[in-house]
């Protein structure tokens, strides 16, 4: 502890005054010859024990008053909290740059600005307040956490400049990932005194589970670092309560034929407490408005709108839905790309051609992929199938195919396997169905090849539901795979109706393999892995009705069509991506030296050049920072490709955690919490310079004076 006015401490000697008065009073005793002694004896008898204690308390109180007064005037500073000396420190800022930070800032703090702008402005002040020689690093925590600077910098004025380029369009903040990145950045911090500052709007969608007690191991790990960093939660908030957004949108087909109607189902959500009437929702195709629908939304309600549109020309087309009305407009649109093709060639290789109708391994698949052709309808199918016996497969059968489907194939000839492997690496899709003919030993040894082969997973063996047991069903959960998104809405089909009696038991390993669907026995039904420029999907069941009734379900047709078109379009751009992710395209090897121009929705352009990555040639853009349709054109070519970007729907609900909840999280992790810049600065001063104690001392002095009066009155009352 230090004192700003140490000389005034001498005033503490004033405690002697009441003590001396007390002693003098005792010495200056007068003698009274008194008659009413019996009354005095009665008084003393009643309060003899209390009197001594009260007298002592009164004396102590009177002695304490001048001491506390002197301490108060001397302005003591408690330095126990002072962090590791007065020198420089390293500040790691975990800045939430998720989309919700673009909401309007609270009117009281930064009228007309966004929450991110407010955060930037506050951070600038915080950085200015840092002692000379301090360093700073910023982890942009929305979506995938990433560093703002390659390494921590002592040029603190650089940070706000860099921050001004941050668009705050990332997806939801993953707190654990962000803290992991902060821990890693902390290891590079040049100063011994280290601080971690979490700047966020503490959107409920990102933080509620943590407030409710979910573990945050990365933060616990961060807090255990030596020397221990000072952790502070800093909230920047919006007072916007009303927001409309397009929560999700599903397209009926990722690839369509000319004149084939494409359905677009849009879910519009009202996150606010007020109802909305007749909100205009526009459908746009290739930048032109086609029609407008109107929708009314109850408080915190949602509405689903369906549009259809048929494109006449082959090529990439953009389709958008845009709603009007609210002040937070960035999440009011949804964009997608639809590929329109003449036809899509699919090769069906069956291991067990059946003699009877629908008994073959690919019979149901054939119908599902070409329903109009099978039904001899006038409508045209996009997909054109070619069915072939695995044992009779020739090299020329594989030519011009965009998707290859294997069903119940016992094993492939070495040459055929090599050809298919090469084709997949060049971007062709491969879908493999299980079946009783499959040679598991070959599948594991040659086809899977410890993860190096085509097959995405090792197979543990056959599994079955006993005849009297309940059959396995698809586990209904929120599907995230692009080919499965359509089935998140019950109108896409009841996946849980399919019953499975036999299946391959996959033992999936590694993060390269993605599960598309699971069975309710906690085993995967379909898994996918990337192989070169193409993708391979393995299904644990048969494509016919031998092991399940899956092919008999109405949703079998859209499911197979979506899986097939998904595999067929893998080489090209996805229908849409989240803002914050880059455009990544595997391109032909001869285009390594080509130059590309990327044009954003506002008309700004930038040049992109491909680079070599392993065996592939990769064209990659910087992370895309705004939603909308982007146009990528190769110099010398007149056929641009389109890329659609949308914001993450979960960011649209702006409801934030309460101050008490944030405080709870902070307390649980031995961190501090600041609700505004002033409280942060106070906290920072306390840590850096110690805490001035004159205020609590003044309160203590007043309390002592008050206590003295009360005690005096009490003693006088007896």
């Amino acid at each position: 502890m230090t004192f700003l006015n140490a000389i005034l401490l001498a005033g503490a000697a004033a405690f002697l005054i009441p003590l001396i008065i007390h002693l003098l009073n005792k010495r200056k005793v007068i003698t009274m010859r008194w008659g009413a002694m019996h009354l005095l004896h009665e008084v003393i008898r009643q309060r003899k024990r209390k009197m001594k204690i009260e007298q002592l308390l009164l004396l102590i109180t009177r002695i304490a008053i001048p001491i506390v007064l002197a301490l108060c005037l001397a302005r003591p500073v408690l330095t126990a909290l002072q962090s590791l000396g007065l020198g420089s420190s390293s500040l790691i800022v975990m800045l939430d740059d998720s989309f919700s930070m673009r909401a309007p800032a609270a009117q009281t703090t930064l009228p007309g600005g966004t929450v991110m702008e407010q955060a930037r402005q506050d951070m600038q002040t915080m950085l200015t307040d840092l002692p000379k020689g301090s360093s700073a690093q910023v982890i942009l925590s929305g979506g995938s956490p990433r560093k703002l600077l390659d390494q921590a910098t002592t040029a603190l004025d650089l940070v706000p400049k860099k921050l001004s380029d941050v668009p705050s369009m990332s997806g939801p903040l993953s707190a654990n990932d962000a803290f992991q990145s902060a821990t890693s950045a902390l290891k590079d911090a040049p100063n011994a005194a280290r601080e971690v500052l979490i700047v966020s709007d503490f959107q409920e969608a990102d933080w509620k589970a943590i407030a409710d007690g979910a573990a945050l191991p990365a933060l616990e790990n961060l807090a255990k670092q030596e020397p221990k960093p000072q952790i502070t939660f800093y909230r920047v908030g919006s007072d916007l309560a009303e927001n409309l957004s397009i929560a999700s949108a599903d397209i009926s087909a990722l690839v369509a034929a000319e004149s084939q109607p494409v359905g677009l189902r849009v879910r519009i959500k009202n996150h606010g407490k007020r109802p909305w009437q007749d909100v205009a929702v526009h459908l746009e195709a290739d930048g032109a408005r086609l029609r407008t629908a109107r929708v009314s939304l109850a408080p915190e309600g949602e509405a689903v709108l369906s549009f259809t549109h048929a494109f006449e020309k082959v090529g990439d087309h953009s389709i958008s839905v845009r709603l009007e009305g609210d002040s937070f407009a960035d999440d009011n649109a949804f964009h997608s790309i639809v590929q329109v093709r003449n036809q899509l060639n699919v090769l069906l290789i069956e291991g067990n051609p059946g003699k009877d109708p629908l008994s073959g391994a690919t019979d149901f698949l054939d119908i599902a992929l070409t329903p109009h052709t099978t039904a001899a309808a006038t409508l045209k199918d996009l997909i054109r199938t070619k069915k072939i016996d695995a044992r009779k497969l020739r090299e020329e059968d594989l030519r011009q195919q965009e998707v290859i489907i294997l069903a119940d194939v016992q094993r492939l000839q070495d040459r055929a396997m090599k050809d298919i492997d090469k084709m997949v690496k060049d971007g062709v899709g491969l879908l493999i169905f299980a079946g009783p003919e499959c040679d598991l030993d070959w599948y594991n040894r040659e086809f899977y090849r410890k993860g190096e082969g085509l097959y995405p997973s090792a197979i543990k063996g056959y599994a079955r539901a006993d005849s009297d047991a309940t059959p396995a069903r698809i586990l209904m959960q929120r599907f995230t795979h692009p080919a499965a998104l359509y089935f998140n809405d019950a109108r896409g089909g009841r996946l849980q109706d399919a019953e499975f009696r036999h299946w391959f038991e996959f033992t999936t390993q590694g993060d390269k393999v993605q599960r598309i669907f699971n069975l309710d026995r906690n085993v995967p039904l379909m898994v996918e892995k990337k192989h070169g420029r193409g993708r391979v999907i393995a299904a644990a069941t048969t494509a016919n009705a031998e092991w399940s009734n899956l092919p008999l379900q109405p949703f079998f047709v859209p499911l197979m069509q979506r899986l097939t078109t998904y595999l067929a379009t893998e080489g090209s751009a996805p229908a849409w991506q989240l803002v914050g992710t880059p455009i990544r395209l595997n391109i032909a090897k001869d285009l390594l030296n080509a130059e590309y121009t990327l044009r954003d929705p506002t008309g700004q352009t930038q040049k992109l050049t491909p680079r070599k990555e392993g065996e592939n040639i990769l064209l990659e853009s910087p992370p895309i920072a705004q939603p909308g349709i982007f146009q990528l054109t190769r110099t010398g070519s007149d056929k641009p490709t389109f890329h659609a970007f949308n914001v993450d729907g979960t960011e649209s609900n702006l409801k934030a955690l309460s101050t008490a909840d944030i405080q709870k999280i902070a307390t649980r992790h031995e961190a501090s919490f600041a609700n505004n810049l002033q409280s942060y600065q106070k906290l920072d001063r306390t840590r850096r310079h110690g805490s001035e104690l004159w205020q609590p001392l003044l309160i203590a002095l007043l309390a002592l004076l008050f206590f003295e009066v009360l005690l005096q009155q009490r003693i006088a009352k007896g």
Partner: protein
Amino acid sequence: MATLSDILQAEDITSLQHLQLFARTVVEGFTTGQHASPHKGFSVEFRQHRPYVQGDEIRRLDWKIFGRTDRFYIREFDEETNLRATIVLDASGSMNYRGQKGVLKFDYARKLAASLAYLLMSQQDAVGLVTFDSKVRDIIPCRTKISHLHLMLEAMVKTTPGKDTSLAPVIESLAQRLKRRGLVILISDFFDDPAALLQSIGVLRKKGHEVIALQLWDRDEIDFPFGNWARFENLENDDDFLLLDPATIRQRYLEVQKNFAEQLKDGFRKHQVDYLSLPTDESHSAALRSYLALRMR
């Protein structure tokens, strides 16, 4: 030694001349009157004339007025009875307290006793005096002669406050000694055990005596105004003392004092004893006047 003039001053005598003390109850005495007193008194006082009405006794006609005016008038008289009043004066140690205003409690007490004696004697009543501390020290029996007053005053002047108080046994022994019923006037601070005191008062009342209790308080004993640490030494016992900060116990002292006074007042009321609390900083004659006014209601 105090002289007689110290005790009774001229202005006291003048102020007391107009006071009238009336006994409430019938006592034995030298009386004449219309009511059923066993003794005929000779102290008869003319009140007024009134016209004769049919039925009046002929012997009460004033024949001198008839001779002068030729009209019948009746003479009306007030009847008086003689009183035996015993003044009991406390001369214990506690009466030796001299307060911050310089008044000695015992001085005040004997002035009061002298005033009463003079008043009673001027009405031809028989007055006696008893002084006591832990026991009866002097007894002067009731007499009506004016020379008797001087005897009592001399006794008062000679008396100095003693040590211990023991009021209850004194009153009980007094009850045995006073053979004829009369008025007993107690002048004391009554600093004794209230229960024993009231019991002895009960004995006195059973003997048929009317009792008047005049309790004397010094202002210091009422207000307890002391600020500094003090050693309180008992006036009645040199070995008894208390060292304390008076300010810290003042409030509680006032409560205890008030309770003590209330206890006595309630006890006296139960025994139909007239009680008056007299602070010594007030003029004793003024205090006595207010008491007499109360008695005359």
